[in-house]
Structure formats: C-alpha cells, structure tokens
C-alpha cells in the first residue's frame, strides 16, 4: 500500500496541569498509516489522545510544554520534524474543526478568509484570479450563488453553510491530507449527512486522504475505509472498517459498540432496560494503571493484564488488537 502519512511510535508529552507535577503523555506509542486516497477513522473518547495526535501531525502541540518525545511523523516520505510546517499547513495538510460557528473570523467576509488561505502560500496571486478560484470552490462545496456569498459575513450563514466554507478553505490548495476533527459534531443530523457526503465526493474527486477524528462509531462505519480505536493515548485496535464491525475484538471496542442505542431491538440495553455502559471511568493521564490501561474496566481481565502491558497483536485481514486475549494470534475470548 502506498502510504501518504505514516506515524511511527509517536510519543507526545505535555506539561502537567500544575507546576511541579510530572509531564503527562497524551499520546504514547502510536503508529498508524494513511494510504493515498484512503479515509482513516480515528475513534475514541474525549481525552484519549486523538486530537493531540492530529496536533502533533500539524506541528501545533500546545506551547510551551508540548513536545514530541519519540517517534516520527513521515508525510510523502519526508520526516515532518525537519520541515517548515508553515509551508505545509494549509497547502499539503489542512484541517477542519468541530465548531463552524466560531472557526471563521467575524470581521472578514467568507471570501476574504479563503483568499487569505491562498495568499499565505501564494503571495503573488492576482486578485481577480484568486477571486475566481474561491468562487468556483464555494460552488464546488455546494454553496448556492457563490458569487454573492463571497461577500457575506460569517454570521449571515447557517452552521451547515459555514462548515461548507471551512471545507472550501481547507481544500482550496488541494492538500494531500485533510484532517477532519469532529467535523459534524456541532451540526444537525440531516446537515451532518450532507457534509459527510460532500467530503466523500470531494475526496474522490481530488484524490486526497482523510483522517477522520470522531467519537461517533456510526460516522466511522459509513465513512472510513479503516478504523483505529484509541484509548488512553494508545491504539488498542486497528482494522478495515467492515472487519472491525464484523468482529470487534478488543473489549473496549466491543464495549463501545454495545453501548450504541438501537431503534430496532433491545441490543444495547441491560436486563434492567438501561443503556449498556462500560463500567468505571477513563483513568486520568497522571495516574495510568501499570499494565493494560483498560484493565481496571475490563470484564475479561487476567492477572497478566495488571502487570504487563500487551502489545499490538496482528490477526488475520489486517486486524490488530492490543489485548492479551489475542496473544500469538490466538483468540481466547470467552
């Protein structure tokens, strides 16, 4: 497989919350690859390290205090550590954010903001030509009468329209990789679907890859080619989407899928008729358990889980799981 982005054993540390506390590691030993034209879904709860992973890719770790401790991020064969990220951000790798209501600067028209995205990388671009490019891009992301909307201020547009503007801004320079960090969380469900279809269309048309960061399993099922599940800064399971949903293996992934409410049956309800939930809470990063990070909440845990952290074990069909149940390719599920 021709990989566009590959992350190798990435470990990121940030300063502890209070002075004097130890450094904490929101991302620890993450390896993943995104192939050309592929959508990789990165799934996990709040605080599992998925956004911090994307910030590390963009070179935007919180400063002061955030740094890459170990590992490499390789994009198009180049280690990003040695690159001028100012040139790469927006041109080769761009990002769209969760909240389109606040991601646009209220004092400029939407057109001017997209023009700025071009100017940041092509200082000499002519006015008329830039405007034409922006208008055509606004049309491409499905904004009606783009010529008029070019001069609209963000507050005049709805949330869905603003997210379309954000997508236009992110894609105007035809980046190879789009990082979409919870791109539809702030939108209505019907608009979510429209935005996701739009992103899928544009991805095919422009041949780019997408790193889709979300906590929504349903979104991943429909939109990703492969899925990586993160927990406490680690990837705990990685598989092609159909494989993951057919045979979820890590107890955490199974817990996540079991806790999705369904309209049709009682599948997600426990015997008392309440929603299934994974017991316990995500451990805080400054007090992670010694062995498997999920062990304290796991129903299949053994003594080994408490003492020794499992590595990613490879299974068939490009599936890998960080769980002792699958040591040596076996399946000791009960």
């Amino acid at each position, binding site marked *: 497989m021709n990989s566009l982005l590959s992350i190798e054993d990435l470990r990121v540390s940030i300063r502890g919350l209070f002075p004097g506390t130890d450094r904490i590691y929101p991302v620890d030993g993450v390896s993943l690859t995104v192939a050309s034209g592929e959508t990789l879904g990165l799934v996990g709860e709040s605080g599992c390290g998925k956004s911090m992973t994307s910030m590390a890719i963009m070179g935007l770790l919180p400063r002061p205090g955030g740094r890459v401790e170990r590992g490499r991020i390789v994009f198009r064969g180049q280690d990003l550590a040695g690159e001028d990220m100012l*040139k790469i*951000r*927006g041109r080769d790798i761009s990002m769209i954010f969760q909240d389109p209501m*606040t991601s646009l*600067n209220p*004092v*400029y028209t939407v057109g001017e903001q997209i023009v700025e995205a071009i100017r*940041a990388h092509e200082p000499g671009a002519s006015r008329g030509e830039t405007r034409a490019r922006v208008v055509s891009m606004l049309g491409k992301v499905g904004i009606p009468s783009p010529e*008029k909307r070019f*001069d609209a201020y963000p507050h005049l547009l709805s949330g869905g329209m603003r997210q379309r503007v954000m997508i236009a801004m992110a894609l105007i320079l035809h980046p190879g990789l789009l990082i979409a960090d919870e791109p539809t969380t702030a939108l209505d469900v019907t608009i979510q679907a429209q935005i996701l279809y739009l992103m899928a269309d544009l991805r095919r048309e422009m041949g780019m890859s997408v790193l889709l960061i979300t906590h929504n399993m349903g979104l991943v099922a429909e939109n990703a080619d492969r899925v990586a599940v993160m927990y406490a800064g680690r990837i705990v399971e990685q598989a092609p989407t159909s494989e993951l949903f057919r045979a979820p293996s890590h107890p955490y992934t199974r817990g996540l899928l079991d806790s999705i409410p369904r309209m049709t049956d009682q599948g997600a309800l426990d015997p008392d008729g309440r929603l299934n939930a994974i017991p316990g809470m995500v451990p805080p990063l400054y007090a992670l358990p010694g062995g498997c990070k999920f062990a304290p909440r796991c129903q299949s845990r053994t003594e080994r889980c408490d003492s020794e952290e499992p590595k990613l074990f490879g299974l068939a069909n490009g599936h890998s799981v960080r769980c002792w149940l699958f040591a040596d390719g076996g399946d000791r599920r009960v």
Partner: protein
Amino acid sequence: MRFLFRRWTALLGFLFIAVLLITAAAAPVITPVSPQAMNPAEKLSPPSGLYRFGTDNFGRDVFSRVVHGARTSLIGGGGVVLFATALGVLAGAAAGYFRRIEPYLMRLIDVMMAFPPLLLALVLVSILGRGMLNVVVAVGVTYLTRTARVVYALTLRIREEPYIEAAVAGGVSQAAIIARHVLPNMLSPIIVQATFTFAFSLLDLAALDFLGLGIPPAIPSWGNMLSEGRLYLTRAPWLLLFPGACIVLTVLSFNIAGDALRDRLDPRLSRSVEGV
C-alpha cells in the same frame, strides 16, 4: 423609533464635531478680535454685536478665546488619545501575547489604576512641570491603563478563538495573524475606548487648567477660562457659560459618536448587507 433617535443623535454628534473641527482650524479667520487683545474700557461687558460671547475681566473677547480654546482642547485631547491608545494597545497586547512579562506589566498597570486619575495626573505634572506636552503625557498615562486593560482582556480572548487556530492550521504566519486577525477584532472596542478617553481627558485637561496646573494661562483653553472666570460668576456668568457649554457639548458629542461608530464597525450589529 429608537433606531431613528439613535441616528438623529449620532448625526447631531458628528455634526457638532465637524463644526468644532472647522472652527478650530479656521480660528484666526472667523474671530474678529485677537484672543489676547485687551480692551479695559469694555471689560466684563455682556454679549453684544461685536463681542458675541461678551468680554472678560481684561476686556478680552470671550468668543475669540472660546474658538481658540477649541484648538487647545482638541489638540490636547487628541494627543492624550494617541499617547494612551498607542502605549495601551502595545502594553495590553504584549501582556496578552508574551505571558512571561504579563505579571510585571499588568501589576504595574494595576498600581497605576489604583490612583484616582486626576491625582496621578497632578503628581506627574508636578514632576514633569507645566506645558502642553507634559500635561498631555500626564493625562495620557492615566488613560493608557484603561486601554491596556481592555486590550489585554481582548487579546487573551481572541488568541484562543477557533478562527485563530483555523488560521494557524491554514499556514498563516504569526505576524499576519496578529495584524489580520487579532487587531481587527479589537478595533471597535479600541475605538470606543478612544472616544471615551477623548471625552474624559477633555474633562481632566480642563480640571488641571482650572487648578492652575495645566496649560499655561497665556494660552486660551476652556479650562483656563473657567478658572479665571469663576471669580465673576455672579457679575458675568457668560465667562463660565460659553466655555462650560463647549466642554459639555464636545464630551457629549464624542460619546455619542463613539457609540455610533461601534455600531457601524461591528458587522454583527449591522442591520443589512446588500445582496444577502
């Protein structure tokens, strides 16, 4: 109705400011008598055909002095605004952006804010000495603290805005982000602050003049005129009426104009945008 009323007052405010600016610029042309010319025979005479605002205790033309005083006041207030806004924006933005110097800079500003403005200005004038420039600096220092506070708070808020993050993710450089995203988003609060600074500094400049610590008495200013005229309050009320009215109307006009500007400059408050 309210909208119409706002428009009317704003119109009047801008009109008065325009008249004031023209008057101040054309002062020598429109005054028939020099503001310094004394005519003891006509001293303390009420407003008449030649002396439209009457004369003072030396027989000087009050109209001429009020018009020339407008010059002094506008230059003084303008100087304070420039000084306070330039340094205040610099200090506030620096404290908001470079967190290392924030404790020192902002505590210094807090200490300065702890003094009543007029008292601080008095102290500074007594250190610096009298004179137009020194008075402007003294009053300017007291107002830069307020601008710095406002800008500091705005910088902290704006630097965390998602659109800043989005711009950074789009590859926009730090300098361009400050110039194109951070500062423009503070522009309207800064302008509003500047109009208030102008209005209040006029009062402080007049108060310093009144106390005899401001602009030297030889230069006609509204504050000096109030100071000199207060002895003749019952015999010649026009000595206080005209400069006093000028101060009130100017302060009021700048406040109204500041509000109107803020409404106009904030796109979220604008009522319609063509074509949308």
